[in-house]
C-alpha cells in the first residue's frame, strides 16, 4: 500500500485539564470523502483544527503527503478550510474573496481572474463575481467559501460543519452538490458533521467519534449495517438494544438470554460473556408475519407518521425497560395501545461485544 495522503498518528489534545482527544490515529486516502461524525464535544472539530494547523496537538504527529506537518502553520500547509460561519471577508467582493489565496501566492491579476471565474463557475455562481458577501443568500455564501478554499488547489479540503447554518431543504441540495464537486475536482475532502444522514449521503469513509475517541470507521454501508460499538449503533441510525448473556456456544452459533427471551444467532463467543444485540428499526417485524426470532409481545406507545413510513415505539411486555424502535410501512394499521408480536431475522441482529 502506498503512503496515505494524511496520516494522523496517536494524536492527543488537552485544553487545560480537559482531555478532548485521546490517542487518535487516522489515515486519509487521496481523492476520498471522509466524514468525521459525532455529537458535540466528541473532539471532531478539534481533530479538524489540528489537521488545518489552527491547533497544535498536545501529543502525536500529523503527516501530510509523508511530511511532518504537526507544527506547520495553516498558511504553509497543503490544506484549506471552509469555516462553519464561512468567514468571508465582508469588505471584499466575491471575486476578491475567491482570489485572495492566489493573490497571497503572488499569482498575477489576469491568471487570477481567470481561475476565480473558473472556480465560481464550478460552484454555480459565475454571475456573482462583483457582488459583496452580504448581498448573497446563506447557500450562496457557502458556495463562495467553497470556491475560495478550492481555487488554491489544496491537497486536502477541510469543511467544518459546512451545512450547519442552512435550512433542511437547502442542506440536502447542497449535500448532493458537494458530492458532485468533490468527484469532479478529485480533492480529498474531510468534513465534520453531527448529522448522520449527511454522513451516510456523502462519505466514502465514515469516522464515528465519541468522547475524544474514534468509535468506528469504514464505508458508511458497513458502519450502518455492522456497527462496531454500541455508540455507533445508536448514533449512526437508530437501533433497539437488547442486553444479554451468552448461555450456549457451539458450531459457530451462540444462544443469548435477553429480557425479551432467548435469541440464537451466528457468533463465536464464550459462554457467560455479556453482550449487546442491536436491531435496526427496518429489521423489526411487527405482527403476524413473524420472523425467525421471536422477541415477545409489546405494547405500542407512540406512532409517528414520517411520510414514507411510520416510526413505532413499543414497550416490551416482558421487560418494561425495553423499548423497541421499529419502522412500519406507511399503510400499516398500528395504533397506540395495541399489543403486538415483535420478531426479527437472526441474520439482521448485530452482535456488539461489551
Amino acid at each position, binding site marked *: 500500500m502506498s503512503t496515505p495522503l494524511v496520516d494522523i498518528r496517536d494524536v492527543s489534545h488537552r485544553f487545560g485539564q480537559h482531555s478532548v482527544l485521546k490517542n487518535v490515529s487516522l489515515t486519509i486516502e487521496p481523492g476520498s470523502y471522509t466524514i468525521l461524525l459525532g455529537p458535540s464535544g466528541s473532539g471532531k472539530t478539534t481533530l479538524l483544527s489540528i489537521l*488545518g*494547523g*489552527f491547533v497544535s496537538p498536545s501529543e502525536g504527529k500529523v503527516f501530510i503527503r509523508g511530511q511532518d506537518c504537526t507544527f506547520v*502553520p*495553516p*498558511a*504553509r500547509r497543503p*490544506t*484549506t*478550510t471552509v*469555516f*462553519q*460561519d464561512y*468567514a*468571508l*471577508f*465582508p*469588505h471584499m467582493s466575491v471575486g476578491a474573496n475567491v482570489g*485572495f*489565496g492566489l493573490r*497571497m*501566492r503572488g499569482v498575477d491579476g489576469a491568471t487570477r481572474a481567470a481561475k476565480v471565474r473558473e472556480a465560481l463557475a464550478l460552484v454555480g455562481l459565475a454571475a456573482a463575481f462583483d457582488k*459583496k458577501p*452580504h448581498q448573497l443568500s446563506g447557500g450562496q455564501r457557502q458556495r463562495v467559501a467553497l470556491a*475560495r*478554499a478550492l481555487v*488554491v488547489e489544496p491537497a486536502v479540503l477541510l469543511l467544518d460543519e459546512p451545512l450547519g447554518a442552512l435550512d433542511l431543504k437547502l442542506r440536502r441540495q447542497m449535500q448532493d452538490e458537494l458530492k458532485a464537486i468533490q468527484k469532479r475536482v478529485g480533492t480529498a475532502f474531510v468534513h465534520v458533521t453531527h448529522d448522520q444522514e449527511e454522513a451516510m449521503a456523502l462519505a466514502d469513509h465514515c469516522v464515528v467519534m465519541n468522547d475524544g475517541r474514534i468509535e468506528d470507521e469504514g464505508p458508511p454501508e458497513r458502519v450502518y449495517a455492522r456497527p462496531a460499538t454500541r455508540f455507533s449503533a445508536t448514533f449512526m441510525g437508530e437501533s433497539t438494544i437488547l442486553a444479554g448473556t451468552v448461555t450456549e456456544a457451539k458450531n459457530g452459533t451462540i444462544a443469548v438470554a435477553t429480557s425479551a427471551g432467548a435469541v440464537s444467532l451466528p457468533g463465536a463467543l464464550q459462554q457467560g460473556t455479556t453482550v449487546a444485540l442491536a436491531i435496526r428499526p427496518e429489521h423489526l417485524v411487527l405482527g403476524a408475519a413473524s420472523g425467525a426470532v421471536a422477541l415477545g409481545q409489546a405494547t405500542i406507545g407512540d406512532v409517528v407518521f414520517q411520510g414514507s413510513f411510520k416510526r413505532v415505539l413499543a414497550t416490551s411486555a416482558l421487560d418494561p425497560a425495553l423499548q423497541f424502535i421499529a419502522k412500519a410501512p406507511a399503510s400499516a394499521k398500528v395504533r397506540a395501545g395495541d399489543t403486538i408480536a415483535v420478531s426479527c431475522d437472526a441474520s439482521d441482529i448485530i452482535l456488539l461485544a461489551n
Partner: protein
Amino acid sequence: MRAFTRIAAWCYALAVYGFIFLPVVVLVLFSLQSTSFPIPPFTGPSLRWYQAVLSDTRLTSALVNSLLVASISSAAAVTLGFLSAWGFARFHLPGSALLRGLITLPLTVSYLIIGMGLLVLFNSASVPKSLLAAGIGHVVINLPLCFAIIYSQMGDHQINIERAARDLGAPEWKVLLLITVPVMAPAIFAAFFLSMTFSWDEFVISFLLTRFDTTLPVEIWNLLRSGLNPKTNAVGSLVFAVSIVLVVFFELTLLRRKPA
C-alpha cells in the same frame, strides 16, 4: 383619560425639549447682539462679535492647538487601543482579564484626578507644562475608550475571518492590513471620532497641564473672567456650529456605509 395622558405626555416632552434648548437658544441669539451685553433686550442682529472672535489670534491659535492635540492624541489612543484589543482578542495571554481591567481602569477615574496625578508626576520630574503634556493626558483618558469599543467588536466571527486569511497563505502583516483593519474600520472610526470629541471638549487636564499655548476650552475659560460677553457667545456658537456640521456629516456617511 387616554387622550389626557397622551396630551400630558406630549406636553412633558415639549417641556424637556424646552429645558434642553433654552441655554443654546439664548447663547446663539445673544451672539448676534449688537451691544456689549448678552442680556435682554435683543439689539441685533449683528456679526460684530464673530468678527471680534476671528480677529483674536489667541482664540484662533487655541483653536488650531485644540485640533492638533485632539487629532494627534486620538490617533495615538486608537493605535494603542487597536493593537492591544487585537492582541487580547487573538491570543490567550496569562492574566488577560486583569490586564484588560488595568487598561480600562482610567474610565472610572475623574479627569480631575488623572490631571492632578500627571501634574504631580510632571512637576516632580521637572517636565514643563505644555500641549504635549496635555496630549499625553488625553491619550490616558481616550485609550480605555478606544480599547473597549474595538475589543467589544472583535467577536469570534472576526477571529475566524483572520484564520481564513492565514489559512489562504497571508502573512501576519497582510492579515493586519488587508483584513483586520478594513473589517474593523467602523469600530476604529467610531473610536477615533469619539476620542476626538472628548479631547476637543476636555478642559481640566489641559487647564492643569498647559501654560502659555493652550487649547480652546481653556482659552474660552479665560474669556469668562471678563464676565458676560457676547464674544464668548460667538465663540460658543461657532464651536457648536462646527460640531453640528461634523456630527451630521458622520451620521450621513456612517449610515450610508451600513449594509441593508
